[in-house]
Every structure is written in C-alpha cells, then in structure tokens.
C-alpha cells in the first residue's frame, strides 16, 4: 500500500535507470540456462521425426509429426535379438536397479556407520579407514574378480547379481559416520536409561534423525544406480534384464544391414531415461531444504 502512494505521477515521468550490470548478469544466466536446456530440447525435437529424416539430415530443431509414434514404439514395441524386451520392462529394470542400489546402500552404510560410531569395537577406526580407502578403488578396478565371484555363485542374469555386489558404499558410510558423530552423546544415554536397546535406539531415534541425510544419499545413490552401464552389461546377457541406459545403445545399433538405426526411438528412450532421476531430485529436494532450515537442536 505504501508503495503505491509513493508512485506519484511526478515520479513516473522520470525514466528508470537501466542497470547494465543486471542485464549483463541476466544474459550470462540465460545463456547458461539455454546451454543446459539445449541438449534435452534437441533430443525431444529430434525424437519427433522418423528415422530416415534423422539419418539423412541429422539433429532436428523443429517438432515433427512422429513424436507419439516414436515414443510408443520405444516404450511398447518389443525389440532386441530375442524380441522379449520393451521400453516398459527396461524402465522397470532401471527402477529396480536404481531403488535397489539406493535402498541397499543406505541400509548397509547406515548399519556400518552405526557399528563404527556407537559400539566400542576393536579397531573401529582402522575398520573405518579401510572402508574409506575403498573409495580409491572404483568398480572398474575390481571388476574381473567381482565378475568371477558372481559367476561362480551363479548370480549372473539375476537382480541379486546386479545389485548386491555394488551396495557396499564407502561414501554412504562416511556421510552417516559424520552425521552420527554430530548427534549428541546424551541422546544415546537418555535412550539407554529410557530402556531402549541398541536396535530400538537405531530405529526409534537415529533413523528419524537421519531423514535428511537419507534423502540426500538416496538422491546420489539412485542416480548412480540408474546410470550404471558397465556392470549390468557384464553381468546380464538375458535381454529381459536390460535397463534403459543399455536399451538406448541397443536401438542405435542396427541389427541388420538393411535397417536404418531408429534414432528417433533411441532419443525418445533417452528422454524417458532422463525423467525419473530429475523427478527424484526435485521430490527429495523439498525434504532437503526442509531438513536444513528446520534445524532440530
């Protein structure tokens, strides 16, 4: 209200000063945003053309007529050598892998951190650093022995084989350890006097307190699992275990010489593959911010 009364006619005649700095800032921001937006946009527009056009003319900047067709084909037409897998199945596989990864890693690393922080273990610090140094050894370094172990256990072409060997997480253990160490010791002591055993303290107190940490790690680990390529390629040969990330590749490889690769379908699938991680980030971000602002003392 006060603002409007200040805007007297006399004031309106005075030209507003142009803030060149602000304009410069915004140009940079807009360019940055466009740069980030362009690849997905291009994927969307190109996905709306048929394979022949794309093969002949490359990426398309305009919307074509085949968007629906390409999406439908990508999601529901069975493909691959064995004609057993469609986009929906791949989407489900990706979810199983992503969620399995995230949940598995959170459970394992929370329990590991709990043991390290709250129990007087012999060599607890050493154990922690041993876990921590595995950060320096990514999957690729140990991929052959891991494969051999899984193969000997007969776990190739199973979800167990896909998920379990990768769910030990040094990153997760580290984050939870740091968080648990910041929880006041008196809380554990109060719970002890209140008759809560180790398990009850973990479930009733620590897990609820870790909500925001769990959300953060879920985001990281879900995206990590979702984007896995090398390990699934190695461990699953059965096409019914294909994930979206692998499916895209499979479409681009033309199966027979006479066929043009279905670029439109591949891009449609790529867009589908992009959506869930984005949604996870957007959804859990709310928790994130809430957890950070509503500080529980």
């Amino acid at each position, binding site marked *: 209200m006060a603002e409007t009364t200040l805007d007297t006619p006399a004031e309106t005649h005075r030209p507003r000063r142009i803030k060149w700095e602000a304009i410069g800032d915004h140009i940079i921001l807009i360019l940055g945003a466009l740069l980030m937006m362009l690849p997905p946009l291009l994927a969307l527009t190109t996905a709306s053309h048929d394979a022949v056009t794309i093969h002949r003319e490359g990426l398309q900047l305009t919307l074509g007529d085949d968007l629906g067709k390409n999406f439908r084909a990508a999601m529901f037409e069975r493909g691959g050598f064995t004609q057993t897998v469609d986009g929906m199945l791949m989407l489900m596989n990706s979810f199983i892998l992503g969620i399995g990864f995230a949940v598995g890693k959170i459970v394992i690393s929370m329990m590991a951190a709990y043991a390290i922080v709250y129990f007087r273990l012999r060599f607890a610090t050493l154990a922690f650093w041993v876990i921590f140094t595995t950060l320096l050894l990514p999957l690729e370094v140990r991929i052959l022995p891991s494969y051999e172990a899984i193969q000997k256990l007969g776990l190739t072409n199973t979800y167990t084989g896909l998920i379990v060997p990768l769910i030990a997480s040094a990153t997760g253990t580290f984050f939870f350890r740091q968080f648990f160490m910041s929880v006041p010791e008196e809380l554990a002591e109060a719970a*002890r006097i209140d008759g*809560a055993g180790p398990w009850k303290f973990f479930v009733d107190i620590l897990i609820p307190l870790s909500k925001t940490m769990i959300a953060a790690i879920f985001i990281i680990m879900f995206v990590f699992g979702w984007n896995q390529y090398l390990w699934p390629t190695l461990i699953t040969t059965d096409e019914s275990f294909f994930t979206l990330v692998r499916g895209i590749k499979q479409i681009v490889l033309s199966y027979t010489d006479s066929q043009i690769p279905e670029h439109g379908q591949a891009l449609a699938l790529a867009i589908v593959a992009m959506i869930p991680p984005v949604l996870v980030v957007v959804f859990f971000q709310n928790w994130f911010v809430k957890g950070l602002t509503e500080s529980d003392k």
Partner: protein
Amino acid sequence: MAQVTLEGIRKVYPNGFQAVQTTSFTIQDGEFVVLVGPSGCGKSTLLRMIAGLEDITEGVLKIGDRVVNDVDPADRDIAMVFQNYALYPHMTVRKNIGYGLKNRGAPTAEIDAKVEDAAKMLNLSEYLDRKPAQLSGGQRQRVAMGRAVVRDPALFLFDEPLSNLDAKLRNQMRIEIKALQRRLRTTAVYVTHDQVEAMTMADRIIVLIQGRIEQIGTPSEIYHNPASTFVASFMGAPPMNLIEAEVDQQSVRINGFGNQIQAPQSFDGPVTLGIRPEDVEMDEQGQVVFHVDILEELGAHRLLHGRLANQPFSVMLGKDDAAQIGETKINLKPEALRLFDRKTGLRL
C-alpha cells in the same frame, strides 16, 4: 524410593587417569544430595557411575538393597536429567515423556494417563503435541523433568540441569525442581558447579575436589564450618576471607595489629584465618584497619573490597550501613573466626 550406598567406589580410566578416588557415602531415602566442585573434580563421573553410564572400576554400588554394579542403566530404576536436556528432537513432548514407559511395555492407556499427569504437574499440558524445537529453554527443561518423573523411579539423577538457562529462569527452575522433589519424596543426586544451587537445593552437600570428597554436610555446616580453605573459598559468594595470621595461645595476631583478637581455640603457630565477609562490624574503635578500594552496591547489601594487612579482604554490609572508599576500622567477630592449617589448608 531408595537409599543409595557407595562403598569404596573408585574410577580409573583406561589411560590411567584416576577420576574418582576411593569414596564411600550413603544417601538416605528421600534425601536431596548435591555433588559440587570445580570442573574436572569427578562429580559428573560419580553421577554417571551411579547411572550406569560409566563402569565402576572398584567398589560396590547399591540402590536400595540391590548391588547394581553390573545392572544395565535401564534396569536400575533411575531417571536422569541431562545438561542439554537430551530430548528426542523428532518426537512430540508427549512421546518424549512417554518413551521410557513405552519401551517397558506399558499399556497405551496407562502411558497416556501418566504422561497427562506428569504434564499437568509441570504445566506442560498445552504443549504436549509440540516438538522440542518449538519450546523455550525452560519448557524443554520441564519436558526433561517430565521424562524423569513419569516413570516414578527410585532415584533422580541431575547432571547440571540448569546450566543452559539464563539466570532468572535458573532461579525459578531451582525452586520448581526442589519443590517437585519434596513432593515426590524421591531420592535425588544433583551435580552442579554452582555453589548457589548447591546451597539452596541440597539437604546435604558433598564437596569434591580432584576426585576426592573434601567435605560432606548440610549447607549450613558447609557454610559455617568449612573443612578446608578450599571449601571455604569455593562455597559462598563472596567467598570466605582467608588471611595469614599467627596464633599465640589465646590470641590471634594479624601482621602489625597487636594481639587484641581472641582466638576461637587455643593453638600456637602460623595459621590461615578465615572469616565470612558478613561477620565483620564497622567500628571506629575497631581493632584492625581495612583499606576499602572498591564499593559494590547490590541493593540488599553492599560489598566492600579492599586490603587488610596488605591481603585481599571483603566486607559485606547491610544496605543502611554507611561506607566509603578509604581507610576504615573494623572488628572481626571472634565467634566467627575459623582457623586453618597454613600448610595443608585443613581446618584446625
């Protein structure tokens, strides 16, 4: 309700540090005992050993007739209030208070009733559905109290529960805690470094220093008859004046002031003379000269700080007594004089 007995309790940490030297004492049923001492004197360690949060290196601890050395804290029938309250931040006040009962498998209806009762007793009824973060410091303190009283334990343990509150609230909570304990007649052990809390709340005070008990007694005994110069200077604000003097048979001689002061007991040799600041009279014909440097106006009374025979000395006067900076003559009340061994600091 229970009597607590410590028989030769000792605590040595794995690194060899002896936090509590061999101590024995008994806390009577329904008694409010305050452990007081400077930081690092072992008072918290002693309390945590009673709670079961710290192992007992040596000795026997009994709550009631039961030896509880190896009993889990949950099964000792105790409740503890922590300095930072240690409320569960994600639980409502109701759940915070009821958590201990729930873990013991009490029926929901019983938990609800008991929580309501405790909340009413502590004026928390309208806050039952709030989270700790939405409460003020005093209210959080009350929730912590509620968590303790709701279980109706045999023993309350308080670990500096008022240190996080501002001065005014601290005074108020001090009275509330004391009143609550009086009403419930539950044995209580209270740890503090604040001698005012100790004096006002305790039935008996245990003064600790460097892991050993210096003195056990009622607040009045501790105040009027401190067992050592340490207790004399630690308890009371301002502390007892301690000045060097000689005793020659029946008379006390402070450097340069003749032999006019009658000694409270016969002794020969150098002593530390103790006298509370309020046990001094202004008197123009007084025996000793007191040089006033600073005058502190406290409303109800005045504090004069200065030097007596070149040693620091304080005098407390009523609000109506005249006082000014500079030299003045005073009398030390003979019956209030306390003599301490100059070397060991122990009461003679």
